[in-house]
């Protein structure tokens, strides 16, 4: 009798797993274009909200994340927006990632956009240690997202998590030599890794959960994530000593 129940339970688990996988697979067939949010993290220099419009395109060999970012309010004109793209090349292991700042325009991907690049306004790696970052809208802000949009954002975040560890495209190191604002700063101190034990469960270079070591130049994002309570994620906690270690690290010590 007990064995029969066990068999039934395992069948249910397998069914739920397969059904979920099919549902998620189908869900990703939805249109993930032009989802507008108010950013929880970014602020303008005057402390006002930053608005992001996000699109995601999944192609055979790459995933493309595109964003129009406004530091000029929710109704900024097209030429006031920063158009950005993060291209995840799925043909390499680990996948490699390339960041593009493109002249203003719609969030429609085409390979030609590589030729429409403009200089970065800020080093991408300052906040993006491992490719696209989880989308964190301020749902209490000016943009009222529908239930359907919230579901899409959750699916996009799941997609971002499943990218796993990403490495920077080798073109970045070559191009950075001549850039006034590089993709990433290369000095030793800016690239010191954060070695706080709780953080390195995921923020390291190897293992199932690996998302790459956080580097000192990620200090602004690290500070925000810890102070806002987004990190560590549920199931993890940091000790007071580790919190002090993180503080010291982000201060340059």
């Amino acid at each position, binding site marked *: 009798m007990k064995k029969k129940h066990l068999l039934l339970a395992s069948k249910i688990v397998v069914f739920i797993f397969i059904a979920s996988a099919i549902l998620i697979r189908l869900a990703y067939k939805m249109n993930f274009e032009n989802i507008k949010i108010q950013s929880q993290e970014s*602020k303008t*220099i005057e402390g006002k909200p*930053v608005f992001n419009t996000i699109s995601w395109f999944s192609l055979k060999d790459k995933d493309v994340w595109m964003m129009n970012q406004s530091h000029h309010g929710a109704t900024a004109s097209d030429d006031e927006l920063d158009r950005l793209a993060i291209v995840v090349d799925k043909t390499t292991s680990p996948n490699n990632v390339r960041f593009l700042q493109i002249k203003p325009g719609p969030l429609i991907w085409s390979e030609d956009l590589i030729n429409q690049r403009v200089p970065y306004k800020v080093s991408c790696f300052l906040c993006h240690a491992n490719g696209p970052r989880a989308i964190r809208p301020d749902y209490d802000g000016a943009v009222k997202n529908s239930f359907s949009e919230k579901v899409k954002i959750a699916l996009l975040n799941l997609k971002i998590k499943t990218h796993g560890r990403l490495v920077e495209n080798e073109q970045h190191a070559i191009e950075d030599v001549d850039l006034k604002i590089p993709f990433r700063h290369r000095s*030793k101190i800016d690239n010191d890794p954060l070695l706080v034990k709780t953080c390195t469960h995921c923020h390291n270079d190897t293992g199932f959960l690996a998302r790459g070591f956080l580097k000192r130049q990620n200090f602004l994002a690290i500070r925000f994530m810890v102070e806002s309570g987004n990190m560590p994620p549920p199931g993890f906690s940091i000790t007071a000593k580790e919190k002090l270690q993180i503080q010291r690290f982000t*201060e*340059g*010590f």
Partner: protein
Amino acid sequence: MKKKFVSSLVFVILTAGFHARAQVGAVDNSVPAVEKFSYVCASDDENSSVVLKIKNNFGSDGKVVTGKVIVENGAVLGLNSEYTADVSFENSFYFNVTTYKLLDENKNALGDFTISKQNAVMTRGGNFCGRAGCDTFPVNPSPITTSSGLLKIYEKETSFTCQ
């Protein structure tokens, strides 16, 4: 007439000479100049009055070769009143970090005092100015008036704010 002219000339020369000498004397006897320190760092512990005054000593090539760390009220931390220090620098786009390795009289390292200045290029008031924000409202790399200091000595860690 000629004699009177010569004596007047001698008088003027002597007067001017004494005046100049008096001026030199006035400079020599002035209040001693305030010693300029590279950093003055006060303990972040409000119950502590420990102050570290750092003076960089420059070599003939103009580069800092050693440091002098003068300690005020440091007995509570077991500190002497003065240390010489080996100095090292690590600079980047975001941080300027200077480390003073405190030495005892036998030139043995006792501990470190590190000062980190975070460049204000990308932030204002703790907020990241972001892409368009940086572009539209250029942030002045305003002179940084405060820096953080961290003293690690005798297995203790004490944080400071430096000017």
